[in-house]
């Protein structure tokens, strides 16, 4: 029990450290690799919080496919960010973020403590879903039965979103595709 808490606190602090390093890196490749590491540590965090399905989705999609997409985009983009002096706009941004963080942390005293069985979130739907998965659907993995059956329309909507995003990416990059094919033709001559 106490070991679980310590592992939790360690992983979440590691995520904080990585995020602070991401702010100041100027080489784009190290930004991308640090973001991948951040996602991977988040996946470990999900395992320690009992969300195994979320953990392997985050590890494969968040840490894997996102990183590949960033690296693919990097091949068209400048490798390094322009250097920028610390100016008054940064001070405004820091002030805004500090104020919002202060308000959120103040509000966190009204949130229930992590991991209590009496928390309001555990009172209503979860028990019905677990019983229903055992008695009506017959799949041992409760997350799968909710995803595909109880909230099937959600999953359908998600598929539509991905389809739309795919079409939009193709439309945006069409010019690039024709350009590379022109280079290809030029080489053939």
């Amino acid at each position, binding site marked *: 029990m*106490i070991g*679980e*808490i310590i592992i939790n606190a360690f992983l*979440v602090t590691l*995520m*904080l450290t990585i*995020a602070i390093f*991401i*702010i100041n890196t100027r080489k*784009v490749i190290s*930004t*991308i690799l640090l*973001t991948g590491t951040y*996602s991977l540590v*988040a996946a470990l965090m*999900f395992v320690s*919080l*009992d969300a195994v*399905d*979320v953990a392997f*989705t*985050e590890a494969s999609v*968040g840490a894997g*496919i*996102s990183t590949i997409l*960033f690296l693919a*985009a*990097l091949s*068209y983009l400048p490798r390094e*960010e*322009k250097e920028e002096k610390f100016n008054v706009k940064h001070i405004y*941004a*820091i002030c*805004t*973020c*500090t104020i919002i*963080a202060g308000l*959120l942390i103040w509000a*966190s005293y009204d949130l229930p*403590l*992590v*991991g209590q*069985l009496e*928390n309001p*979130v555990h009172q209503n739907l*979860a028990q019905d*879903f*677990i019983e229903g*998965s*055992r008695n009506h659907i017959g799949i041992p993995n*409760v*997350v799968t039965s*909710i995803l595909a059956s109880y909230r099937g329309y*959600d999953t359908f909507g998600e598929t539509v*979103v991905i389809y739309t995003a*795919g079409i*939009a*990416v193709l439309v*945006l*990059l069409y010019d690039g595709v024709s350009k590379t094919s022109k280079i290809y033709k030029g080489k053939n001559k």
Partner: protein
Amino acid sequence: MIDQIFGVWNYWIVFILMMIGLYIVISKKSLLKKIVGLAIFQTSVFLLYITFGKIAGGTAPILTKNIDEIYSNPLPHVLILTAIVVGVATTALGLALTVRINKAYGTINEDEISASDLVEYHKKYLEDNK
């Protein structure tokens, strides 16, 4: 005592991570860095939801033979599964836009993009008023 501190520790770090993401989105000029900031913000929100679903001493929500087993709440897990996949779709769209902007302007720095927009506008204005 130690339970009290670690009971809110996760929330605090998650809020600070959110604000780091927001800071990157506001203050960095590179469009690619802004997308990274959004990704950080997103993952911290996922972490907040999963933290809500945790029950101390529970197991992952996969049914066992034991009737009295305590399972963590599966509903936040399902919501976040959907959100992760949609998040990758938005990242891909943002990156495609960035690549397109780089092709049109030759830069992904915010200031240089608005400067070259301004130059275009003034050229057009002078031509119209000849």
